[in-house]
């Protein structure tokens, strides 16, 4: 094996993808079909969008547990607007509401973390519950249906053979890749995760950048919310529960270090793809739902362990 592969932090996910791809091609007659691939892509879209934001945050030494709740809250606010506005309302305003709510929630997280110095895990654990509670309150605890058709069509359907929402996820990933690798913002994220005190002493405004990172995570959660709402044609107050955990899992499977300062978006996408293929395969093979959970957990563990580079003592 060449040294690139040995160094590659997401090789566990790569191996997993290849192994499952071959195995499922043999054992399932429907796995190798365009329809099934589209199915997998659709299923991982929201996870990829959210995990992109989480990748940025974990690299910068942070974390955001509230993304699933932000996703639901944005959906509820947008749906409430569409249902109350005459004639179904304007798509643009609907999107804007989602963006503002998501960005607002993210900046709120950032404010608490950067200015009140609350550890991000604790701060977003709190807001996870607050935002979820708000989603339940503003929806009356029920799913909101009858949304603007044009809004739904914007995020669903196809561009050529590829689902629109998957294209969106790829664009977002490319954007974050560029942001992390080529821009000052990305560089500061790596530096912050590596040594916050050093960044502070260098005269860089740590608070501003933290606000920016959490705001971005909230914004991406809002976009995830738009996609999910459109896919199921309803805004659910309990949508996105446990999405933060899925996102963290694929980020780590992708070789991003929980300690901060190290990571990449490409790995996150491979992590999400592996998780998507495994879920899809277990369904195709008709594995008992109770066993699925167990099996997925094992795959996550194996992918992470085989991707970790052992340190020489």
């Amino acid at each position, binding site marked *: 094996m060449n040294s690139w592969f040995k160094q590659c932090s997401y090789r566990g996910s790569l191996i997993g993808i290849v192994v499952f791809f071959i195995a499922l091609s043999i054992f399932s007659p429907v796995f190798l079909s365009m329809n099934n691939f589209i199915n997998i892509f659709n299923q991982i879209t929201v996870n990829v969008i959210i995990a992109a934001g989480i990748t940025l945050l974990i690299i910068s030494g942070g974390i955001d547990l509230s993304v699933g709740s932000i996703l639901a809250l944005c959906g509820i606010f947008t749906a409430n607007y569409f249902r109350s506005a005459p004639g179904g309302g304007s798509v643009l305003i609907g999107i804007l509401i989602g963006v503002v709510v998501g960005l607002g929630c993210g900046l709120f997280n950032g404010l608490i973390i950067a200015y009140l110095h609350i550890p991000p895990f604790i701060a977003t654990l709190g807001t996870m519950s607050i935002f979820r509670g708000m989603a339940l309150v503003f929806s009356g605890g029920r799913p909101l249906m009858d949304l603007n058709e044009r809004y739904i069509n914007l995020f669903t359907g196809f561009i050529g053979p590829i689902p629109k929402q998957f294209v969106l996820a790829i664009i977002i990933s490319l954007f974050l890749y560029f942001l992390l690798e080529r821009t000052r913002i990305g560089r500061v994220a*790596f530096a912050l995760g590596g040594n916050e005190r*050093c960044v502070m002493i*260098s005269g860089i405004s740590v608070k501003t950048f933290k606000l920016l990172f959490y705001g971005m995570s909230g914004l991406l959660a809002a976009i995830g919310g738009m996609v999910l709402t459109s896919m199921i044609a309803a805004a659910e107050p309990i949508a996105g529960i446990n999405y933060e955990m899925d996102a963290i899992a694929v980020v780590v499977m992708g070789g991003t270090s929980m300690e901060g300062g190290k990571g990449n978006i490409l790995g996150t996408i491979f992590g999400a793809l592996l998780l998507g293929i495994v879920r899809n395969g277990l369904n195709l093979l008709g594995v008992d739902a109770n066993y699925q959970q167990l099996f997925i957990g094992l795959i996550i563990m194996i992918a992470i362990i085989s991707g970790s580079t052992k340190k020489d003592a």
Partner: protein
Amino acid sequence: MSDAFIQINNLSKRFGGIQALDHVSLTIRKGKVLGLMGENGAGKSTLMRILCGIQTCSQGEIIVEDKRADINCPEDAQDLGIGMIPQELLLVNCMSVAENMFLGYEILDRFGAVDAKAMDLRTQEVLAELGCEGIAPSDCLGTISKANQQMVAIGRRIIQGGKLFIMDEPTSALTVHETEKLFGVIRSLCNKGQSVVFISHRLEEVLELCDYFAILRDGVLVDVFDNGDGISKQDLIKPMIGSVLDEEYPHEQADLGEVILSCEGLSYKKDNEEIVDDITFSLQAGEVVGFSGLVGMGKSELAQTIYGLRPMLNGAIKVHGEKLKGHDVIESSKRGMGFVSEDRRSEGLILGLKCLYNMTLTCLRKLSIGTVIDRKKELAVGMKYVTPMNMKREYLSLPANNLSGGNQQKVVIARQLASDAEIIIFDEPTKGIDVLAKSEVAKIINSLSKQNKGILIFSSEPREVLGLCDTVYVLNLEGLQGPYRRGELDYQSLMGIQFGEHHE
């Protein structure tokens, strides 16, 4: 019976392609202090780590008290009475002195519970033996001085029945007075027949303390000789670097320009909550101003206050005659100040990040269009500083963690140069780096002053301040003393002022 405690025969160690130790044979004598000398990377630490069982050797044998010893793990070394007191003390700050002394070796009573009383008693004995007054077994470790923490670390080894004490840079955090005390303790250990290996970059100290020297260069033992009257610093430096160092602190006077920084009536709180006040001084372009003083007088704290890392209780800081608008790091760096921290690893560098990225951290804005970094420009910045600082090009793409202390310090300094800082504050600029790197850092500081930068140096090494600075201030118990011009003070009189004597 021979006087050898340990006889090392033909010891070799390879790390991948690097020969860290090459057939080293050395005798560690009973009741003597060995000064183990060498530059960073010469193999000192590797040799000591093998003795302590932290690493194993590739080849060779170790004979302890005339018996061949297999040291495969730290416990083996422990059983033989070999113990290391590392540079970064491995103690628990939130536990008491006694708890630290017995950590992992607690005395148990007949019910199997920790016998705190017995531990306190034994701790008291050991502290008395070490001449540590003023600390009690129940004191919280974090509240006692660095010097006393060092004593606790030594006491810990005594309790565990140590016969060989390996001390890696034990004096780097100590004052002159505390160092003297430590030397007393080391001598009394030797008088009881125990052996000490002493590693330090401070040549004056090793000449004072050690009975004999072993000098390593690139993994080879190049010289072993006894200390004596005729032995000078050059006798140590020459075998260490393989040549004669012309001058430890080269100095060339730069032309002084206008006043770029002035502090008026500054006051601040030290770490121990005492207030230091009425700090007034100014710095001209091209001038190197040094601040000397014993540990605990608030040197580092002053450096931090000037840069905005620590609140200013009173007074004013002016850059180019204009008062700073706020008092924080962002304002200071905007106004052209740069800070080289005393603690490279935890404050100066992002260890996991490439050296190039470490260098360009503060000047990224200049290298970017919007937020997009121009990578060609960035690399050019790195290349600009590599050659004059005597570093290799390949370092740029290595994580900072992989470099030696001296090269790491150059990376931190390069960051200040790249950011066009006009006023550069150095807190202990040569702490823990080897002789050659020290002289290189000194040269860089000198060349900076010739580029019309203003330099502030905060150092606890009197020779460094005397050698590098145009103007010297001393912080002692009475406050800030000075200014003293270059040549006005010598080592003796500077030490005198540090201890509160008045200079006439």
